[in-house]
């Protein structure tokens, strides 16, 4: 393993730093609107879920949903624009950097950004009195893992894509269904059992179970297999992305 992927992270960080105020603002404002709107609004209709207020249940899911969105936006749109529109990757290959360095760098960077978005939700949860003490902080490594998982999958799409249009398939066929099936907005057990099985084959449901377990102390059915599933998806994704990108850029 070599460490040169750090340079790519440094590059993306320096660019992000120029825009971090609008970036942080959206990181905080978007989920706050969701939480307040859905949490209090729908919360007043549904009462409690799993014996806790709906807004609390929702906040647990939003931790993961926000992480997912952030990792996806970075590894899909931002990375693709560096690959195709700006030709940033192509330029970097003229330095002593390889395609693998670039993909690993983008992967870790997207996960770090996702962790930041997830942390913003946690901050809001503390502010709204939905999280207490130090224990909820244990969710941060899970959010990083979820970020790596989602970013790995997104990078497969990015390295295959010919244009931005291609991502519509990924959203319609994968991300949107996964977001609504994975127990983020309502409990998994509300779904017919075969749909629950589908959801449990996908990463987000496992992220949500782990997150609620660590933040609220809800029971986690199979913590180790959930962690393993996230890791397998993420590593498989990034390995495929490395392969595809090597073929695409070293031709």
């Amino acid at each position, binding site marked *: 393993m070599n460490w*040169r992927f750090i340079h790519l992270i440094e590059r993306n960080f320096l660019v992000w730093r120029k825009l971090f105020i609008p970036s942080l603002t959206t990181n905080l404002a978007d989920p706050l609107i969701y939480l307040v709107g859905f949490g209090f609004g729908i919360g007043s209709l549904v009462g409690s879920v799993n014996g806790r207020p709906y807004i609390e249940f929702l906040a647990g899911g939003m931790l993961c949903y926000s992480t997912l969105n952030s990792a996806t936006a970075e590894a899909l749109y931002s990375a693709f624009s560096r690959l195709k529109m*700006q030709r*940033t990757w192509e330029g970097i290959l*003229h*330095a002593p950097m390889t395609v693998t360095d670039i993909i690993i760098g983008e992967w870790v960077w997207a996960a770090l950004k996702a962790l930041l978005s997830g942390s913003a939700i946690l901050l809001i949860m503390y502010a709204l009195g939905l999280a207490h003490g130090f224990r909820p902080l244990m969710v941060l490594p899970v959010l990083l893992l979820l970020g790596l998982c989602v970013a790995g999958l997104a990078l497969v799409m990015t390295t295959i894509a010919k244009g931005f249009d291609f991502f519509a398939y990924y959203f319609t066929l994968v991300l949107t269904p996964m977001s609504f099936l994975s127990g983020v907005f309502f409990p998994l057990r509300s779904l017919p059992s075969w749909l629950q099985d589908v959801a449990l084959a996908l990463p987000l449901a496992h992220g949500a179970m782990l997150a609620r377990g660590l933040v609220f102390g809800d029971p986690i059915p199979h913590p180790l297999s959930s962690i393993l599933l996230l890791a397998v998806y993420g590593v498989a994704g990034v390995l495929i992305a490395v392969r595809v990108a090597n073929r695409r850029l070293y*031709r």
Partner: protein
Amino acid sequence: MNPVLWAEGLVKRYDGRVVVDGVSFAVNGGECFGILGPNGAGKTTTLRCCLGLTTADSGAIGLADFAIPAQARDARYRVGVVPQFDNLDPDFTVEENLLMWARYFDLSHRAARASMPRLLAFAGLSERGHVRIDTLSGGMKRRLTIARALVNDPDILFLDEPTTGLDPQARHLVWDGLKRLTKEGKTLVLTTHFMDEAERLCDRLCVMDSGRIIAEGPPRTLIEQHIEPVVVEVYGEGARAWADSVARPLVSRLEMTGETAFCYTDAAEPLLAAIGEHPTIRAMRRPANLEDVFIKITGREIRD
């Protein structure tokens, strides 16, 4: 002395089509070596092979004492690259582009900062360190790309069509910069389809066509070897037919390209006298150049 760059029997196919077809050459330290040829001749692919950015189907390459592609990353620490299409980082300013580039070479922030005034001066952008890339003209971008390629103080610089797409003034500025580099002892490898560029800059060059090297040597030597000293271009209405019948016996060689007849000779006077006061035919007399070499060897123009 070992050559800084050598290639032996390079072959590269794309989808069964042979793009580079048995190319061999060697570039010595301090030399400016040109690869001249029309678009699609395989110049860029040859460069990409040499840099390890694509793998040749067969052949061997050595660059700065490293085997390519196996040690391409190590070799690239000693190399600067100026690609055909500018790929400066649009998210950064002029100075940030240079600083970040230094980081890719593992240079410290301090070392990168220290070289900044020199590099900005080279690019002629000392006053513009903090401007965005998209505000620069094409010539400025190209000069900045060349400065970027100097960040790691390379032994050898690869330039892929360094002045394509630039206006004449910007081309001269780039040429001045490149001449300064050769004076400093840098090794330059450049591709071009401009004759004047190759003649002006290169100590030695090879002419490439359809993936093969068809001639190699110093520009003046190539011209002297292949071409008669004087060229008269005959053009205008009816030039072709006139040249075929009247000019042919007066010159040592005649090539037709489009509506222009290229007459090669040791003395232009008899030909110019024969044209005399012809109502429609014009003639231009000039010294032989590399384009004539190309036309002679391939039977067609290099312009595309």
